[in-house]
């Protein structure tokens, strides 16, 4: 079945043949992918439903009544997660950018600052978040210093910011490194100071380039805000835990998990879209 000449009258016969062939190939791949997915899901579902323990698992993890009853408490906890997420995300961007900028400073005067910034990123990228949460969450209140917050929410947020800023600083630094030195030279030649060149010329280009990896880090942060529950903050995970203890049913965990997924999906889609757009631009050779 060749693409009819009426549809593409301007195309040569050879090009129409090629189009026809490609369309046939695409149709076959789609068919194959679709049918194999259906078969896989059917087999997977059957194995689970026919497993000896399915009845018990179903009542313990998929109890609609429990889900409905636990939802308000978990949703309230989730609202806390959202607020922590928003605060932390903004702080992480600011601290990360600041640390990255410090690492680009040149000259012997700034050597101590550069060293501190480098040490910070090295240490906190390597440090397990869960350990840091315990250290900050239980260690800082243990100091009993006047005026230092003891709330698990604040301290959990501090631990998240410390860890994630180190990652984000590295992302920003990589972005800054991709801006060609001639851009900085052009800016300086116009009389812009080091700081002005950074703010007006280097950082805007760097930030554009690192938006996709930053969004990935944001998705990871969305899940990790649930970790403040280990300090006792009543977030979605902790609220679910309380409900589980109350009902002897694991469904509340599933409810909390679904809420996190609902939050992540739009961000993941956005990240994909931004990535695809960046790739297209790269192909076009432009940057804008």
């Amino acid at each position, binding site marked *: 079945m060749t693409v009819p000449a009426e549809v593409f009258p301007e195309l040569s016969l050879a090009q129409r043949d090629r189009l026809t062939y490609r369309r046939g190939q695409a149709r076959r791949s789609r068919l194959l992918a679709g049918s194999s997915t259906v078969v896989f899901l059917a087999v997977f579902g059957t194995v689970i439903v026919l497993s000896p323990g399915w009845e018990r698992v179903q009542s313990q993890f998929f109890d609609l009544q429990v889900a409905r009853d636990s939802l308000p408490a978990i949703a309230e906890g989730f609202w806390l997660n959202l607020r922590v997420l928003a605060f932390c995300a903004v702080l992480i961007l600011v601290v990360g950018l600041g640390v990255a900028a410090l690492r680009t400073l040149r000259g012997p005067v700034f050597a101590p600052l550069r060293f501190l910034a480098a040490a910070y990123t090295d240490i906190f990228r390597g440090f397990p978040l869960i350990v840091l949460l315990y250290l900050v969450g239980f260690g800082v209140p243990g100091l009993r210093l006047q005026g230092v917050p003891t709330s698990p929410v604040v301290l959990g947020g501090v631990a998240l910011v410390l860890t994630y800023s180190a990652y984000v600083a590295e992302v920003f630094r990589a972005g800054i490194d991709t801006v060609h030195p*001639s*851009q900085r*030279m*052009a*800016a*300086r*030649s*116009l*009389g*812009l*100071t080091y700081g*002005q060149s950074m703010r*007006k*010329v280097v950082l*805007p*280009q760097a930030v*554009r380039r690192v938006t996709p990896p930053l969004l990935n880090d944001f998705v990871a942060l969305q899940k990790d805000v649930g970790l403040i529950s280990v300090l006792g903050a009543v977030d979605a995970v902790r609220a679910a835990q309380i409900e589980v203890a109350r009902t002897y049913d694991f469904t509340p965990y599933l409810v909390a998990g679904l809420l996190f997924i609902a939050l992540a999906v739009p961000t993941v889609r956005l990240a994909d879209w931004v990535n695809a757009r960046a790739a297209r631009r790269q192909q076009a*050779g*432009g*940057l*804008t």
Partner: protein
Amino acid sequence: MSDDGSPPNTVPVLEAEGLVKRFGSQPVLSGIDFGVAEHEVVALIGASGSGKSTLLRCVSLLEELDDGTVRLDGDDITDPRADADRVRSRFGVVFQAFNLFPHLSVLENVTLAPRVVHGVSRAEAEDRARGLLDRVGLAAKATEYPDRLSGGQQQRVAIVRALANEPRMLLLDEVTSALDPELVGEVLRLVRELKDEGVTILMATHEMGFARQVADRVVFLDDGRLVEQGPPEVVLVDPRQARTRQFLARVIDAGRL
């Protein structure tokens, strides 16, 4: 600038004395003295790697000198107490690779320095920028981004961006070498117009024909030394120095004169 044909000021616009620059242990400029007078167009010629770009970057304080003094209108700009950022804004530097800012529109490229460095209001800066763009025939491109322009258009925008700062003089570093042959003309025409308006220009160039037509003086650099300088009719046609003759012979072989 001012009326043409007047005798050059007694104080040169630019004056370089004993410039020395090394990259690591490699000497790139080994004691260079020269000056550029008001309204004068000086062409820097020399083989690739002879130090032309380095010289331009050193006098405009984009590169730190290892020794020597540069004076702009008689002021020692290599004095560490001078405000280097201010000094840089008094030179209009145009690079071989244009170096336009890809994230800014043409208009934003041109108005950035007047606004950020000189505190000119947005409206005024844009007004002046549009005037300059109109002059070089690019008014219609004001809102485009650099990657949508041809090389020749980009280079003309780069020249306009340098002019928007109202510099004391222009430093042009091989502004046509990155261009396709058919685009070279439009940029050279603009440089010639600027000369006719009395703009003081120091330009590194491989375009010997253009240097001959436009330059008041040609300076030949070889291996970081100033070997010969003088009117183009002499340096480019009947040079005194053997090194200059060798260089020109190679250029003629390559079909560039």
